């Protein structure tokens, strides 16, 4: 029985899979924040290179991965697919658990799958500098690595609570030559506005996005890059699922369940979209696709499916997505990368249409699962990833009850080597199980008179 299922370098996908081609109807268009009219390519030109704008809206099923990008991806791709024999044995489950290990990238997570092409297209467009935000620091470090390869300057607004919790992520960005600023900062109007209102704020991804977008929009040589949510980001991550499908085929398997954690949705999109495509086109109608969220920020499970801003200041286009409200500042959980009020419009749409589903967990539950995983498979996963681990374990335990031999695949999206303070908090019994008081909010909303 194989433990690692490996592809050769030349077997790495040469094209990304664009799920927009297989949606039964087109996505609701993003709307201009001021006019509420659909945004056109010109509206986005100020902060994105044209090729990424094209990828954002195209309905072509396959999009070529430039050779220069493939060359860089070969540093760690194809990434290994593991069969979790030891975890299965520990759980005494008849289920077969597979995990795609994305922690082998230089930055330690899946984020480099999109930071490389994004930096590449910006370099091609003659851009000199990129501004971005980062939650836990995974995206910031991945973009710092990518911009260094293409000789671009990089400014990263890092959510303040993570900046304090994860100092080594900041050090990585420095090694790769990027500038890392805690957000909210005094460098931007949006940052100053938040600080004025609330000098002690822990910050949030939505605030950091406002700062980075403002930075890009006010500097001619600077573009903006986003590490999740947008269609082109999800597109770049599909290499994960495409490789998984090949690797599983090598052992004559196809997943019954595909799992990924969800913050902005790109890591879940990456592993699940190729399978969601199979589901929508009728090739594998029964595959169960599960996004896993923190109970403190349960966008897909407890949010509203509606148009909302992607950031706190309301600078981004309005997107149709599940949202907890763009002014919602989620509590400072250790899975900082999952603290986002909204979600990828495509993932939102697929959850809304029932192609995918979502579940949520408390912090202590996911760290317990992460410990089990570390003590069986060895890998100490990032707090974000531990959400996927929890769900995979629960699904495997369900199989133990029912006796079903399901094939479970999850995205083991990153390592937690810089998150040991979170594990320390778990062992000290200091993890707080935050949750979202949706019942109270719903009661209040239901009693608000409808304005017609």
């Amino acid at each position, binding site marked *: 029985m194989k433990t690692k299922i490996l592809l050769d370098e030349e077997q790495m996908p040469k094209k990304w899979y664009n799920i927009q081609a297989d949606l039964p109807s087109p996505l609701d268009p993003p709307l201009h924040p001021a006019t509420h009219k659909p945004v056109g390519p010109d509206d986005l030109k100020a902060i994105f290179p044209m090729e990424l704008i094209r990828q954002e809206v195209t309905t072509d099923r396959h999009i070529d991965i430039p050779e220069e990008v493939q060359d860089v991806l070969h540093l760690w791709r194809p990434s290994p697919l593991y069969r979790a024999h030891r975890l299965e044995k520990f759980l005494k489950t008849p289920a077969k658990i597979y995990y795609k290990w994305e922690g082998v990238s230089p930055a330690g997570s899946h984020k480099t799958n999109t930071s490389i092409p994004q930096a590449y297209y910006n370099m091609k467009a003659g851009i000199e500098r990129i501004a971005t935000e980062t939650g836990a620091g995974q995206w910031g470090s991945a973009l710092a690595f990518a911009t260094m390869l293409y000789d671009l300057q990089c400014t990263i607004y890092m959510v303040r609570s993570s900046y304090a919790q994860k100092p080594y992520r900041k050090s990585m960005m420095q090694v790769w030559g990027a500038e890392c600023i805690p957000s909210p900062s005094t460098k931007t109007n949006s940052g100053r506005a938040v600080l004025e209102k609330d000098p*002690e704020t822990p910050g949030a991804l939505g605030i950091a996005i406002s700062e980075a977008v403002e930075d890009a929009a006010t500097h001619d040589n600077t573009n903006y890059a986003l590490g999740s949510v947008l269609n082109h980001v999800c597109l770049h991550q599909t290499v994960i699922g495409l490789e998984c499908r090949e690797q599983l085929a090598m052992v004559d398997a196809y997943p019954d369940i595909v799992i990924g954690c969800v913050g902005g949705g790109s890591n879940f999109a990456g592993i699940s979209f190729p399978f969601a495509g199979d589901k929508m086109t009728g090739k594998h109608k029964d595959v169960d696709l599960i996004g896993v969220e923190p*109970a*403190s920020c349960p966008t897909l499970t407890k949010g509203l499916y509606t148009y909302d801003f992607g950031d706190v200041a309301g600078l981004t286009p309005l997107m149709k997505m599940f949202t*907890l409200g763009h002014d*919602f*500042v*989620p*509590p400072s959980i250790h899975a900082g990368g999952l603290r986002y009020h909204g979600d990828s419009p495509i993932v939102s749409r697929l959850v809304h249409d029932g192609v995918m589903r979502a579940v949520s967990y*408390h912090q202590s539950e996911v760290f317990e699962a992460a410990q089990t995983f570390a003590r069986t498979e060895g890998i100490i996963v990032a707090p974000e990833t531990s959400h996927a681990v929890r769900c995979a374990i629960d699904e495997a335990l369900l199989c133990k009850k029912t006796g079903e031999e399901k094939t479970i695949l999850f995205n083991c999206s990153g390592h937690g080597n810089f998150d040991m303070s979170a594990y320390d908090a778990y062992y000290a*019994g*200091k993890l*707080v*199980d*935050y*949750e*979202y*008081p949706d019942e*109270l*909010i719903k*009661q*209040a909303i239901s*009693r608000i008179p409808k304005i017609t």
Partner: protein
Amino acid sequence: MYRIGFVVNPVAGMGGAVGLKGTDGRVGEARSLGATPQSGNRAKMTLSLLKKDPDLLFLTCSGNMGETILKEAGIPGYQVVFTGKSESSADDTKAAVQEFLNEGVDLILFCGGDGTARDVFSVTGRNIPILGIPAGVKMYSGVFAITPGAAAEMVAGSDKTILRDAEIMDVDEEAYRSGILTTRLFGVASVPVIAGMVQVPKQVFEETDEERAKDEIARFIHEVMVPDTLYILGAGTTTEAIARNLGIPKTLLGVDVIKNGRIVTQDANEKTLCNLVENEEDIRIIISPIGAQGFILGRGNQQVSAAIVRRAGIRNIIVVATPHKLQETPELLVDTGDSELDLEFGSSIQVISGYRIAQHKRIRQMS
């Protein structure tokens, strides 16, 4: 033979159910409001669990300061070593404890509240261990077992366990009645310990970020308040912040009632609350755990009785607490006096701890 000095403050706790926030100097008033003595019954619950232990010898006071209760609980061997002059005198309690010391007891077991703890400790100091059976209105001191049953377990196991320090807190009862919660450290007593069974001294958090957290909680509660619903606001500084956010005053230590943003009644006792909820369709109870002990019902909010909770429904209880307070409170405790109702709370509860933020906390039933 393990020698225990046993003394009961017969009037302890009487002020609680009638909204007096303490019984010191208010026994007559409590009686006229319909309060009945409770401490004897609480003490009897402890003693009845100890009646079969042949190694215990109780030394006690005459009448309802000890003897009557020992007799009713079926304790076979005890000695009356002190005869009190009146039923509510702190001097009597102190004199009895002094007599126990003269007799060379190993432990003093008392039943009462913070005032009683203070009286007992003022005589014993750290010389011998003391243990309180909770029966008072306020129990900020750490010398109380969590329940009468837990007190029995600790007595039975006390010669085998290590002693620990427990703070005796002094609550200014007159200030407390006028809405100012001032607790100060009165002394550090020695108590027998079985892990998890002694109340941690209550703490009132007044740091800057606590105030901020209270305001956030208040902002959220304000946002989710619905019209034509009766809101019962329990005691404490967090519920006070909620009232402040609504622009209405709040008695810090009493239970107030509001509806449609206006005060219905302030500082209500159990009877008033019962009358109020009788004709209401939608009722919410907003309460905060008391200090570091984590009691959401049963300590400090006694006016919100089991009957009121049943009328409102457990799902209509909104628990609020600042993150700091919750950090000091690994689990929340419920002791409504109605064990069936306590069980209906289940194993966990949601606690609002910020604006649109809640924490998932374990809950433990006391009975």
